[in-house]
């Protein structure tokens, strides 16, 4: 069974090749079957492997499959090989499972698009690359997937290429993540020079043997890897690309910019957790980055008008939670949140996509409203997703995962009250913006006429994901309610166990949960009051000068774009334009001009008069003679 592992990335890749090469010759109806089918089969294989993994785990709880020797030069060997353990298996399942549902959804969503086949080709390529990312045994292969998903992200954000704004967003996304990637690449060089290998498991082993905790190399390596993770996952300070990435079609946002690609940074940190363990200061920075991001993005989500941008900021914020988990050493908790987030965020995006299509590509929430009656399936699934996002207790998967993170942030050795408080405040804000979104979209009066209603092909994935987001959390139930740590237990073979709580905190867990739930409910009620029951409250707040300024600042995502434009982009553009004609050329052309000047000076002596030549000849003779005679 495990030998079929190679099929998991190979199937979507084959789908990509078929669609890319023959896409315009195949009948239009074939495209979704190839596109979704390849991912579906890939998902099937993943599930079979997962079943096998549960029932008969491979030796050492991991399995690796060498496909061929990729690079082998003296001093550096790199296999093209896949590595499967609990972590990559979970990622695999998420990518193929959620990916399949999104493919099915897009079969209807994109049906009117002229580049139907191209869309599925890109999506398949993305899934293949993402699978390489999570299955790669060494860092180079991981990097291959890493850049591959970046490419697909670029292609899909700019999918509707005729609008230059989409292209700009795509370029921004690629370049911003590329900055992070470059840090990561330097990190790889550093790791290779220090450890002599880029095989991840081998590397981790050698690192833990060779490096002392807190050693400079470890911190440097961890920081460089963090740079890559931050770029890909849209964390501070490289989060600016993600809201703009919403320019792509909604399934793309669901798959790439919510469920899978943006969580690659979390996966990367979990994969290389040994290095972070060896560099406590870097790991603390991970937690701080996560905490800061979740708060900033949460507040920014409050002021957005575009429904997809709200979701984008909420994604940044939720990934902030995952980073927080990574930072406090609760790797399994972070991955757990990754999984549940993949469910409910994909659900939210797809549901919002249904709304957008229904309203004829209207994304402004201020022009929505009252859709509860018109689009019941969408409404209920969106509500379920929202409950998960806001982590309403018991009935939502988000509650279980976020709660685990908050508890770890509070109780683990690396955690602290401040980090917990950041997460707690984030939960409160999440409650507000989530239900602001729900209320503005589905309640109140109808502002835009419903254009088309989603068909079953779009609704089915919504329903399935709604079920997942409701019950997915039951994989891990906190001890305060009923001790059932299935997920963390499963992850133990790949990731170290969750940090042991401090003694005497047994009762704190329940208390904290109650506080968090109260905060969320407060947020919810504020949203209901301010945007639903008495909208004038919100309006009044915004009408004050401070409120207006605050709203503008939050709307612009805290002004990072403006800042980067001023300190990076404009100077770069100015330098480039200033030196467009290459100042070095001046030097060479200067030499040319100089010799041309000397030439024209000398050519003045060429009068064309034969007598002048005779005279100069005799002067020359005279001089020669004089030199011989007189000297």
């Amino acid at each position, binding site marked *: 069974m495990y030998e079929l592992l190679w099929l998991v990335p190979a199937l979507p890749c084959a789908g990509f090749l078929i669609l*890319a090469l023959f896409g*315009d010759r195949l009948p239009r109806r074939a495209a979704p079957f190839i596109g979704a089918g390849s991912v579906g089969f890939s998902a099937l294989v993943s599930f079979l492997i997962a079943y096998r993994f549960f029932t008969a785990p491979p030796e050492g709880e991991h399995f690796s499959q060498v496909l*061929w*020797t*990729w*690079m*082998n*030069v*003296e*001093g*550096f060997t790199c296999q*093209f090989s896949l590595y499967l353990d609990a972590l990559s298996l979970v990622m695999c399942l998420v990518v193929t499972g959620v990916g399949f549902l999104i493919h099915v959804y897009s079969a209807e969503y994109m049906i009117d698009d002229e580049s139907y086949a191209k869309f599925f080709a890109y999506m398949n390529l993305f899934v293949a690359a993402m699978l390489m990312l999570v299955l790669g045994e060494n860092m*180079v292969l991981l*990097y*291959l997937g*890493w*850049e*591959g998903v970046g*490419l697909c992200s*670029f*292609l899909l954000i*700019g999918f509707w*290429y*005729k*609008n*230059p704004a*989409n*292209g*700009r967003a*795509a*370029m921004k996304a*690629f*370049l911003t993540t*590329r*900055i992070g*990637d*470059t840090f990561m*690449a*330097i990190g*790889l*060089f*550093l790791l*290779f*020079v220090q450890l002599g290998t880029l095989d991840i498991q081998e590397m981790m082993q050698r690192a833990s043997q060779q490096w002392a905790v807190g050693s400079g190399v470890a911190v440097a390596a961890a920081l460089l890897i963090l740079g890559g993770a931050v770029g890909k996952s849209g964390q501070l300070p490289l989060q600016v690309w993600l809201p703009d990435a919403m320019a792509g079609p909604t399934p793309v946002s669901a798959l790439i910019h919510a469920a899978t690609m943006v969580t690659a940074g979390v996966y990367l940190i979990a994969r290389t957790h040994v290095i972070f363990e060896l560099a406590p200061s870097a790991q603390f920075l991970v937690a701080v980055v996560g905490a800061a991001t979740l708060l900033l993005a949460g507040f920014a989500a409050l002021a957005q008008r575009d429904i997809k941008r709200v979701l984008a900021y909420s994604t940044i914020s939720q990934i902030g939670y995952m980073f927080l988990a990574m930072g406090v050493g609760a790797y399994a908790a972070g991955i757990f949140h990754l999984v549940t987030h993949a469910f409910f965020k994909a659900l939210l995006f797809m549901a919002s996509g249904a709304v957008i299509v229904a309203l004829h590509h209207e994304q402004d929430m201020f022009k929505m409203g009252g859709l509860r009656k018109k689009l019941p399936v969408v409404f209920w699934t969106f509500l379920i997703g929202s409950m998960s996002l806001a982590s309403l207790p018991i009935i939502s998967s988000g509650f279980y995962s976020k709660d685990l993170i908050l508890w770890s942030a509070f109780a683990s050795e690396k955690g602290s009250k401040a980090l917990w408080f950041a997460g707690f405040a984030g939960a409160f804000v999440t409650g507000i913006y989530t239900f602001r979104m729900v209320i503005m979209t589905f309640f109140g009066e109808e502002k835009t006429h419903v254009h088309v209603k989603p068909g079953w092909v779009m609704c089915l994935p919504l329903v399935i994901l709604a079920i997942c987001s409701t019950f997915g959390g039951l994989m891990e139930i906190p001890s305060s309610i009923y001790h059932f740590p299935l997920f963390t237990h499963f992850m133990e073979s790949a990731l170290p166990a969750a940090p042991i709580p401090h003694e005497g905190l047994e009762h704190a867990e329940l208390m904290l949960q109650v506080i968090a739930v109260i905060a969320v409910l407060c947020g919810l009620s504020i949203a209901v009051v301010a945007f639903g029951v008495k909208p004038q409250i919100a309006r009044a707040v915004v009408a004050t000068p401070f409120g207006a300024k605050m709203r503008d600042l939050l709307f612009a995502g805290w002004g990072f774009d403006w800042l980067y434009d001023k300190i990076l982009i404009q100077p*770069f553009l100015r*330098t*480039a*334009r200033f*030196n*467009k004609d*290459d100042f*070095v*050329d001046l*030097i*060479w052309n200067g030499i040319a001009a100089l010799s041309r000047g000397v030439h024209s000076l000398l050519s003045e002596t060429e009068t064309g008069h034969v007598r002048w030549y005779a005279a100069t000849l005799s002067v020359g003779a005279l001089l020669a003679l004089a030199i011989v005679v007189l000297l």
Partner: protein
Amino acid sequence: MMLICIVLIPLLAGVIAWAIGRQNPGAARWVCLLACAIDLVILLTLWNNQAAMAAFAAGGPWLMQVNVPWVPALGISFHLALDGLSLLMLILSAFLGIVSVGCSWTEIKERVGFFHFNLMWVLAGIMGVFLAMDLFLFYCFWELMLVPMYFLIVIWGHENRIYAAVKFFIFTQFSGLLMLLAILALYFLHGHATGTYTFDYDLLLGTKLGSGAAKWIMLGFFAAFAVKLPAFPVHNWLPDAHTEAPTAGSVILAGLLLKTGAYGLMRFVVPLFPQAAIDFTPVAMTLAVIGIIYGAVLSFAQTDLKRLVAYSSVSHMGFVLLGVFAWNRIALQGAVMQMICHGLGTGALFMMVGAIQERIHTRNIEKMGGFWEVAPRMGAIAMFFAMASLGLPGIGNFIAEFLVLLGSYQANATMTSIASLGLVLGSIYSLWIVQRVFHGARENQAKLPDFARREIALFASLIIALVGLGFFPQPIFKTADPALSKLQQLAVAGQGAVQVSEAKHSGGNS
């Protein structure tokens, strides 16, 4: 004998093409295509010859060589020799020869015979450079590839061709003369020391030179190769020459001519003057890094699409320079890989620009936009090569850049970290091409037919080659490895010799 044939075939094909070109241009094209194909077949057969490769890998001197006295009185011989490195470069040459004949199929309409004559003779000169193991012969080939290139630019070039051609000629000729001086100095110093006056590479290896002399002679060689490479700040001929040359000329320039510089650095500069090269490394690496960054920034600033691609070459070849002077196996393999992949990738980009220019009669990027809509195949292909240019994993360029940086990080971490910035800047200009030309709203209403079958075939062959190299680069490494290992050993031995002689020298003094 085979080696002489390899050089002779394009020479002859050129003459035939010239002779029949006036009456029958089509036949001239076919003759040249056939000549390159025959060369390619011969070379691939050689490559496939497992026994010879194994013998070479086991420590044989050359895969194959011809050594006939030419002017014995002066120690000049007709010495051609082949090792893995040359073999790869030759295969690249033959392949790009086919591509460049193919891409000028419809572009060149005037004096077709003479055009192909020049094309073939440049190619022969380049192949000769990759094969010559006698410095005098090497210099002859070095000049041989220069003159037809000059004609290619000056006769079939674009608006500003004379300026560009003269600039190209002066830069390369002047630096070539510096190399000639260096060759002669080496010749005389070696002859003076040992009594045998010879230009033969094998014999000149390990010449004991005073550190001052070695430095200056090394700089003479370096000047010629750096100009060809081109390294900052002697890169200025390149944008002009590339921009003004006809498409096939640009392909040959970018794909092959630049590689002769890199090849020269690997073959001559470091092995002949190891110690001087080591002393020079910081400077060379700095130049490389400046070239990478500077080329990328300038590339982005250009409005002439061809110039944009040309500056990207400066950036890419900076990686080669970096790799060569890092001088460890990983970086060297990366540099070889970069030479090949840059040849294919940038050649393709030039063909792309040529195709666009043929269709809409401008290279100005501001007059382009939204081409994807009417020419999706062209767009997809351009996208691929833009991705190759920014070093996307899965394409050969990634392997190259990654290995170069990985290797040079061992040699100099700071420089490499700065050079890595080139990855970001590289993506800026690469994406800019796609963004500006193919995305966005339709700017130019001129008719823009999509690629036809001939063009698709050419680009497809390049794409297959690049993707193949991206996933299965091992054959390249395997072929280059023994050659590189030998070069490294030579350098180490030479360095040792210098140290020993210097030690003796100082010992004698004390």
